[in-house]
């Protein structure tokens, strides 16, 4: 196996080249210990296997950014046989800066002149032979976006892996050469890396290299001082200047540009997109479109995907043992619970897929850094970064988003402190799954002010996120690494369909692999906590009595018909109920008349005796059908009542009661606690749990009504619950992603418990305040809103701790 490393500057089209070489069978992992993506693929060419690794795009090999450190240590530690340097042909001069440093490594290099189409369009003529001769490397032309040059690149890699290096390339660093040579002699390390490269990096104070070759910073400082004293030059500056000068030299010998100074398309687009007056409207439009297409459009798509999941559920239900009237086998309960939990998460796949595809398009087009450019000033005030915009929008800037893709989109933020702060604040944005909970409570307590309350809820979240970000960056994150804001605005490019789809699939796959598995494991735990120890015996006896009465009633009615023989045994009655319920569930999914007819036929074939009672035609059958319908209703009511009892008695119920002393200040009783606890697995379950606790058995009454009529809560309680939900902790899926992106369990735990504490404190404070001052629910919400908005604005005017490189230091 031959190891190939793909290196290049950002925006050189490196990933399109990687996609072209590797096809779809890419392996995505992380570099050890950091959250930088490591993409690799094994490519076969002429009977030899090549392992190609896509290094992060870097301008140089300094210690500045995580990407640069990762790329450098990869080249240092792994036995790379060939380096493929992807270069933007339309911007050769600047790209050479990295090329020189790759050449100095002393390994075979293949230079890929990518984006030749753009270079040709701009009338940039490159003398390939001259370039190859000057740099002593193979040079291959390609257009990654059009899949041009794959065979040539592979052939060049093959040749490079076979030839021995003849004459390694050298830049003449002038006065520094003597000192480089001295250091080379001091380095005894045996490695495949050229000593010259190690010596140069050591002179540049590269910690990583110094450690590797066993030199101290002090010794380098002495050398630098000597150089400065003798030649009056600055080492770093000298290196950079020589590299740029050499690039200039190569450029002038090899490149002829005929359209210098012509206004290009990027400049024209930027005049609009970054225009002082148009920038914000355009940004708003882009965000609105992302939101419409992904959240709204994706939600509509779920209308088409949910029948698929629902039929999957029916398949599972068909496989597990059937219920014997009110006695449902635990395994059946468990299977249905698991299927429901899985469906709740998988339901988001269409939304995620569209979102990830749109993000990939924005990344490829080059709009992302422009978005950061426009909004940086606002976000910096709160310790965030211009690049925090998209994650926060995805997290739910409007009526609802999802923290999972939001946090996954923090990957590109260069500033480590702002990146962590963004990861930790995205969960405060309006999660889509919180919306049913809001509507439930608003429907129950504020049916007439729903619009107003929804406005408060959806806008207050952004203020809260900003306040939390500011708080975290000036306290727990205060000493985290911040980066200089130097960001390239790349030329606009058309994205490739393959590249976009590939990335969208990779991210969805990551979600399924990492998130769904963990959530399923938690679902098992939650099931046990909610089901056991179960309904107490004496209560159970009561339920059984009711069930028996209903069965006896059915029996009496059935006896009066001519088809009694079909249902004179209890097992037959149970089978009939199950058939009735099963048919109803499937009938709901059958859309057309044709589908219904087909369904009827298959049911009749499977149950020739009982099915006529489910779809009755004779008078006798109709009577039985009516009785079964009643029985099925009783069954449902008893099941609900038992479920409610079961939750009240469950471990989670006990835990909810145990928390009452703390939560009573915010007005939460154990039922609310249980609902919040169960919402950790997935937010949707808060509504489901609250609904089933309040299920009082009266059929036809909606959860809103039963909560409102229950009498235990006032609108103030409702607002306290809303406040807690607004601040409440991320769901488990989000926690998993926080762990993935922050690469630390510590931050995951922090992201969980900080919001809980904050939520309890805030809701207790406002609940107590409102109850003692006799406010209405609306007043309480308004007061909260004003406080938060005022605090957020006030913080914007207080200067944040200045960066370490501020003038004067």
């Amino acid at each position, binding site marked *: 196996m031959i190891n190939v490393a793909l290196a290049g500057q950002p925006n050189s089209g490196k990933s399109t080249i990687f996609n072209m070489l590797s096809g779809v069978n890419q392996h995505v992992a992380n570099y050890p210990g950091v959250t930088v993506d490591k993409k690799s693929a094994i490519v076969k060419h002429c009977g030899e296997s090549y392992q190609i690794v896509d290094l992060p795009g870097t301008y140089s090999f300094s210690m500045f950014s995580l990407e640069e450190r990762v790329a450098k240590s990869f080249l240092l530690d792994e036995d790379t046989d060939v380096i493929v340097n992807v270069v933007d042909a339309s911007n050769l*001069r600047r790209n050479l800066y990295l090329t020189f440093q790759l050449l100095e490594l002393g390994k075979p290099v293949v230079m890929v002149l990518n984006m030749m189409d753009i270079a040709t369009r701009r009338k940039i003529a490159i003398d390939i032979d001259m370039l190859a001769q000057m740099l002593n490397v193979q040079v291959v032309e390609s257009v990654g976006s059009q899949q041009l040059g794959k065979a040539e690149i592979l052939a060049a890699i093959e040749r490079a892996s076979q030839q021995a290096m003849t004459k390694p390339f050298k830049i003449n660093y002038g006065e520094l050469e003597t000192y480089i040579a001295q250091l080379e002699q001091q380095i005894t390390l045996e490695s495949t890396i050229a000593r010259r490269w190690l010596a140069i990096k050591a002179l540049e104070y590269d910690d990583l290299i110094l450690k590797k070759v066993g030199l101290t910073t002090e010794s380098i400082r002495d050398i630098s001082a000597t150089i400065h004293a003798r030649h009056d030059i600055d080492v770093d500056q000298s290196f950079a200047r020589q590299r740029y000068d050499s690039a200039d030299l190569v450029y002038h010998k090899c490149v002829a540009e005929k359209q210098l100074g012509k206004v290009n398309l990027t400049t024209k687009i930027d005049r609009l997109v970054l225009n002082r007056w148009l920038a914000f409207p355009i940004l708003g439009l882009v965000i609105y479109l992302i939101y419409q297409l992904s959240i709204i459009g994706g939600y509509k798509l779920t209308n088409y995907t949910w029948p698929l999941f629902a039929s999957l559920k029916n398949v599972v239900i068909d496989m597990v043992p059937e219920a014997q009237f009110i006695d449902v086998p635990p395994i059946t309960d468990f299977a249905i619970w698991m299927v429901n939990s899985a469906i709740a998460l998988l339901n988001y796949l269409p939304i995620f897929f569209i979102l990830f595809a749109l993000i990939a398009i924005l990344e490829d087009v080059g709009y992302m850094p422009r978005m950061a450019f426009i909004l940086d000033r606002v976000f910096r005030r709160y310790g965030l970064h211009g690049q925090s915009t998209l994650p926060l929008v995805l997290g739910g800037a409007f009526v609802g988003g999802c923290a999972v893709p939001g946090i996954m989109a923090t990957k590109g933020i260069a500033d480590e402190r702002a990146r962590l702060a963004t990861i930790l604040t995205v969960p405060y944005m309006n999660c889509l799954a919180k919306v049913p909970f809001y509507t439930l409570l608003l429907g129950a307590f504020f049916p007439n002010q729903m619009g107003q309350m929804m406005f408060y809820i959806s806008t207050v979240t952004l203020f809260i996120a900003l306040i939390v970000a500011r708080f975290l960056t000036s306290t727990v994150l205060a000493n985290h690494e911040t980066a200089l804001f130097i960001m390239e605005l790349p030329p606009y490019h058309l994205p490739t369909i393959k590249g976009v789809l590939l990335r969208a699939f990779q991210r969805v796959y990551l979600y399924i692999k990492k998130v769904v598995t963990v959530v399923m494991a938690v679902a098992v735990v939650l099931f046990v906590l909610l089901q056991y120890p179960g309904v107490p015996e004496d209560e159970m006896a009561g339920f059984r009595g009711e069930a028996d009465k209903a069965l006896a009633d059915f029996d009496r009615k059935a006896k009066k018909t001519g088809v009694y023989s079909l249902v004179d045994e209890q097992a037959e009655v149970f089978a009939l109920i199950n058939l009735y319920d099963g048919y109803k569930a499937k009938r709901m999914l059958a859309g057309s008349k044709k589908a219904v007819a087909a369904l009827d036929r298959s049911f009749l074939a499977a149950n020739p005796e009982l099915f006529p009672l489910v779809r009755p035609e004779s008078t006798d059958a109709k009577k039985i059908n009516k009785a079964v319908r009643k029985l099925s209703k009783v069954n449902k009511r008893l099941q609900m009542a038992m479920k409610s009892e079961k939750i009240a008695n469950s471990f989670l119920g006990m835990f909810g009661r145990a928390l009452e002393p703390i939560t009573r200040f915010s007005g939460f009783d154990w039922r609310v606690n249980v609902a919040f606890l169960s919402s950790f697995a997935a937010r949707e379950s808060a509504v489901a749990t609250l609904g089933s606790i309040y299920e009082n058995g009266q059929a036809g009454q909606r959860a809103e009504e039963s909560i409102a009529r229950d009498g235990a809560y006032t609108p103030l309680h409702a607002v306290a619950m809303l406040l807690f939900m607004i601040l409440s902790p991320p769901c488990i899926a989000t926690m998993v992603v926080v762990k993935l992106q922050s690469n630390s369990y510590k931050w995951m735990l922090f992201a969980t418990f900080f919001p809980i504490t904050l939520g309890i404190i805030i809701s207790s404070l406002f609940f107590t305040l409102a109850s003692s001052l006799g406010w209405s629910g609306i007043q309480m919400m308004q007061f909260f809103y004003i406080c938060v908005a005022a605090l957020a604005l006030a913080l914007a005017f207080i200067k944040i701790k200045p960066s370490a490189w501020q003038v004067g230091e």
Partner: protein
Amino acid sequence: MNQNAKASLLLSDLQQDQRGTIKMCVASGVLKQKLLNMGFIPGAEVLMIRNAPLRDPIEIGIQNYLLTVRRSEAKLIRVEVL
């Protein structure tokens, strides 16, 4: 007098569409290396392209590419107007 004022101009002081050459970088450590790597080398030509809509950061052209820099960082670079 005029000469002095010219020499002490900071990158952040350039007006839109004004060109300048870099005189020096008042930075140290990795920060200086980063600036050097990005092409902020004495003698290099810079073009002030525009302010962000909120005036900060700024967009400049250097070494044939477009860079955005915050004003706080642009203050580290001294330029001479062309």
